[in-house]
C-alpha cells in the first residue's frame, strides 16, 4: 500500500549504550566468569553479534544460591523493612534516570520497536519497583494473614519477550517481601538484566540480594531444581511450565507460573469499529505478537465482520515494519530464528488446514528475522491457528452471532490468561467479563498493565498473580 506520508528515518542513537564484548555472571555483588560455554547474543534485526555472555553451570548456580542464602540470612532478612523499601525506591529512580539507555539496549537485544521499549517496558519496570518499594514496610496491612514472613531464596526464570519488565515483575515483589533472588534471564535477551545488575551496584544494594545467572535451559533447570531454593517463579511457555511443576513436585518449594495464552478479543456489533480495530491491532501486533496475553483470536460479530476486516486490513497496511531503533517503527524484528521458524510453520499449517491468509504488501529487511503482520480469516475453532499459541504477529479471525456463542468460543481453549471485549454497553462488558474464564479482561482497551493490578492466568495459563496486593502472596510464608 502506498503511504500517504513518506517518513524520513528517525533512528534513536545507540551511542548512549556501551555494550561490552563479553559479560560474566552477577553473583554476590560481583561480575564473575561462568564455567559453561558462553552464548552469543545477537541483534535480531541485523543478526549482528552484540556480545558474548557467560553460561552458568550447576556449580555457578550453586554459588549464586549460596550467596543469596547468605544475603537473606545475614543482611536482607534482618534489615529494617523501611530500609529495604528505600533500596527499591533507589532502583526505581535509577531505572528512570537511565531509561533511555535501557530502552535502546532492550530494542537492540530483543528487536522490539524503541517506541514500545521507551514508552512501555522501561517506564513500567520503574513503576513496578516504585510500587513495591512502598509495600516493604506495610506488609502487616496487606491482609495476607498475621506476621507475614519472607520465604527465603527465590529462583526466577523469565522469558525474552519483555526482558527488563519481566525482571521487574519478579525481582521487585521478591525483594519488597524480604526475599533474595537468583534470576535467570532468557538466553536470547540477557543484556538488560546485566545492565540491571549494574544498577543494583549503583544503588549499593547489599551483595547477594540479587544474583543474575545467564545461560540456556540447563541453567534454568539448575535454578529451579536447586535444593536451597524456597520459591520458584517462572514466566514462559506452558510446556516448560509443566516440566517445572513436575520438578518441584514433592518438594517444599512454593511455585507460581505465568504461562501461555490464546486470548479472544470479542468485537460486538455496537462497538466503535475504528477504536476496536485500533485495539485489535495493538492487541496482536504490539511487540510482534510476542505477548503471552496477546489478543490472537479475534471474535467478531457476524453482522460487522466485513466492515471490521476491511478496516483492519486498511489499518494494518499503514503499520511500519523495520528498524526497531527507528521512532516511527510499529513492528520490529522477530526475536530469534527459532521463533521465526515456529511462526512460519504454524502459519503454513493454518493455510494447509483451510484458513485464508492475508498479509499487507510489506517489504522485509534482507538481514535479520522478520515476519509481516498476518491475518487469517475462515478460521474454524478446530484449526491449530485457533488453538495453539503462535507467539507472533498472526491474528485468527472467527465469528459469532450471539453473546452466548461469543463466550463459548472465547472459553473454548485450554488457556485462560486474558480476553478483550469491545462494546458501547457497560452492562454487557460486566456480564461478559463475568463469564470469561480468563485472569485479565480488558474492555474497550487491550494489553494494559499496571503494578497495582494483579495479572495471571486461569487454567493452563498458570497460577499465582503478579502485581497488586495479590502478587505479594507468592513471596510470603503462609500467606492466604
Amino acid at each position: 500500500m502506498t503511504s500517504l506520508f513518506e517518513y524520513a528515518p528517525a533512528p534513536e542513537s545507540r551511542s548512549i549504550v556501551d555494550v561490552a564484548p563479553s559479560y560474566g555472571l552477577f553473583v554476590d555483588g560481583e561480575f564473575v566468569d561462568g564455567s559453561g560455554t558462553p552464548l552469543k547474543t545477537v541483534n535480531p534485526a541485523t543478526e549482528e553479534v552484540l556480545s558474548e555472555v557467560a553460561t552458568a553451570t550447576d556449580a555457578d548456580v550453586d554459588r549464586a544460591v549460596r550467596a543469596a542464602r547468605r544475603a537473606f540470612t545475614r543482611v536482607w532478612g534482618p534489615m529494617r523493612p523501611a530500609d529495604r523499601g528505600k533500596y527499591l525506591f533507589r532502583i526505581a529512580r535509577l531505572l528512570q534516570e537511565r531509561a533511555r539507555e535501557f530502552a535502546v539496549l532492550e530494542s537492540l537485544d530483543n528487536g522490539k520497536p524503541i517506541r514500545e521499549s521507551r514508552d512501555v517496558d522501561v517506564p513500567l519496570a520503574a513503576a513496578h519497583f516504585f510500587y513495591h518499594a512502598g509495600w516493604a514496610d506495610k506488609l502487616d496491612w496487606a491482609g495476607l494473614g498475621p506476621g507475614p514472613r519472607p520465604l527465603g531464596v527465590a529462583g526466577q526464570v523469565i522469558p525474552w519477550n519483555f526482558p527488563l519488565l519481566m525482571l521487574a515483575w519478579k525481582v521487585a515483589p521478591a525483594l519488597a517481601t524480604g526475599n533474595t533472588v537468583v534470576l535467570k534471564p532468557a538466553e536470547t535477551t540477557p543484556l538488560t538484566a546485566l545492565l540491571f545488575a549494574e544498577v543494583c551496584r549503583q544503588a549499593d544494594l547489599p551483595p547477594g540480594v540479587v544474583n543474575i545467572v545467564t545461560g540456556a535451559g540447563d541453567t534454568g533447570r539448575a535454578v529451579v531444581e536447586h535444593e536451597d531454593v524456597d520459591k520458584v517463579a517462572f514466566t514462559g511457555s506452558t510446556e516448560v511450565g509443566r516440566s517445572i511443576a513436575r520438578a518441584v513436585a514433592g518438594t517444599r518449594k512454593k511455585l507460581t507460573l505465568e504461562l501461555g495464552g490464546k486470548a479472544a478479543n470479542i468485537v460486538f456489533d455496537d462497538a466503535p469499529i475504528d477504536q476496536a480495530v485500533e485495539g485489535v491491532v495493538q492487541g496482536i501486533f504490539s511487540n510482534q505478537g510476542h505477548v503471552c496475553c496477546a489478543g490472537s483470536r479475534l471474535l467478531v460479530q457476524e453482522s460487522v465482520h466485513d466492515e471490521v476486516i476491511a478496516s483492519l486490513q486498511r489499518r494494518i497496511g499503514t503499520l511500519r515494519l523495520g528498524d526497531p531503533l527507528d521512532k516511527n517503527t510499529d513492528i520490529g524484528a522477530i526475536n530469534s530464528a527459532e521463533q521465526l521458524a515456529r511462526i512460519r510453520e504454524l502459519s503454513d499449517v493454518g493455510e494447509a488446514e483451510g484458513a485464508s491468509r492475508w498479509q499487507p504488501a510489506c517489504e522485509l529487511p534482507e538481514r535479520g528475522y522478520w515476519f509481516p503482520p498476518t491475518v487469517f480469516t475462515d478460521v474454524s475453532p478446530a484449526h491449530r491457528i485457533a488453538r495453539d499459541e503462535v507467539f507472533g504477529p498472526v491474528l485468527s479471525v472467527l465469528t459469532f452471532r450471539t453473546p452466548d456463542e461469543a463466550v463459548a468460543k472465547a472459553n473454548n481453549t485450554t488457556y485462560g490468561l486474558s480476553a478483550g471485549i469491545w462494546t458501547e454497553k457497560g452492562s454487557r462488558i460486566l456480564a461478559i467479563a463475568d463469564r470469561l474464564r480468563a485472569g485479565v479482561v480488558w474492555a474497550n482497551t487491550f494489553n494494559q498493565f499496571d503494578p497495582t493490578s494483579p495479572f495471571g492466568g486461569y487454567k493452563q495459563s498458570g497460577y499465582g498473580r503478579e502485581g497488586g496486593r495479590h502478587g505479594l502472596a507468592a513471596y510470603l510464608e503462609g500467606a492466604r
Partner: protein
Amino acid sequence: MSTDRLAVRKTYKLYVNGAFPRSESGRTYAVTDAKGAFLANAAWASRKDARDAVVAARAAAGKWSGATAYNRGQVLYRVAEVMEGRHAQFCEEVAAGEGLSSSRARAAVDAAIDRWVWYAGWTDKLGAVLGAANPVAGPYFDFSVPEPTGVVAVLAPQRSSLLGLVSVLAPVLAGGNTAVVVTSRTRPLPAVTLGEVLATSDVPAGVVNLLTGDAEEIGPWLAEHDDVDAIDLTGAPAGCAMELERLAAGSIKRVVRPPAEEPDWSADPGLTRLTPFLETKTVWHPMGL
C-alpha cells in the same frame, strides 16, 4: 408382643450426580470398626466411577458457580441444619469408625456441623476480603474479584472421617467450586451418610460427588484428568503425594500438598483452605463521558 424387631440394614453406596449408585465395577469392600468388627460393605469406587463423577461435577459447575453468594451461603447453612437432625447417627458412625468415646465423637460431629456454618458465612464475604479496586495510572475502573477454580478433586483425610472430610469439602463449595471426593478408605461410612444429607439439603446434583474406596487407586486418575482443575492431596496415602503432584502438572492443576501429618481439625481453619481454589480475575473497565 415381641419387641425383637429385625433391623433394616443400610446399604452404603457412592454419591454421584445426586444419586446413590453402586460402583459400576460391582466391587465392594468390608468396613470394620476401630476394633476390627464388621460394620458394613461399602462400594469400592473404580476409575470409571471417578470419571463419571468428574462429568457430573463439570456439568454442575456452571450453575453452582453462577449462583449468588447469598444463595450458596444459605445452601451450605442448610447442610448444617440437616446434619443437626442426623446428629445421633453421625455420632454412632464416627465413634465406631474412629474408635472414639461417645463424648469425643459428639465433639467431632458438633465441630463438623459448626464448620458448615462457618463456611456458609464466608460465601458473600470473599469478594470483600480477597477482591480489590486497583488504582491504575489511567482512565479505568480496574477491579479484581475471586472466582471459583472449577472442578476440584479432594482426597479426604484418612483418619478424621467426618470433621476432616467437612473441613476439606466445605471450603471448596463455599468458593463456588464443585467437588469429587475420595473418602477415607477405612472409615468411609460417615461420608456416605453425609451424602444423604447433601442430597436433601438443596445442594444441586453433581456439586458434590463422594467416592468410597482407595485414594491410591483412584487418585492418579483424578490427578491426571484434564477436566479437573485442582486437587487437594490432604488425604493422599503415604508415599503417593509426589507422584500425584507430578501427574497434576500435566494440566497445570492447582495442588494443595499434604501436611506432614494429619492436622488437628478442630483448629480455626482461617482462609488457608479457601484461597487455593480461587482464581483472581482482574477487569479493566473504561471510564469516560
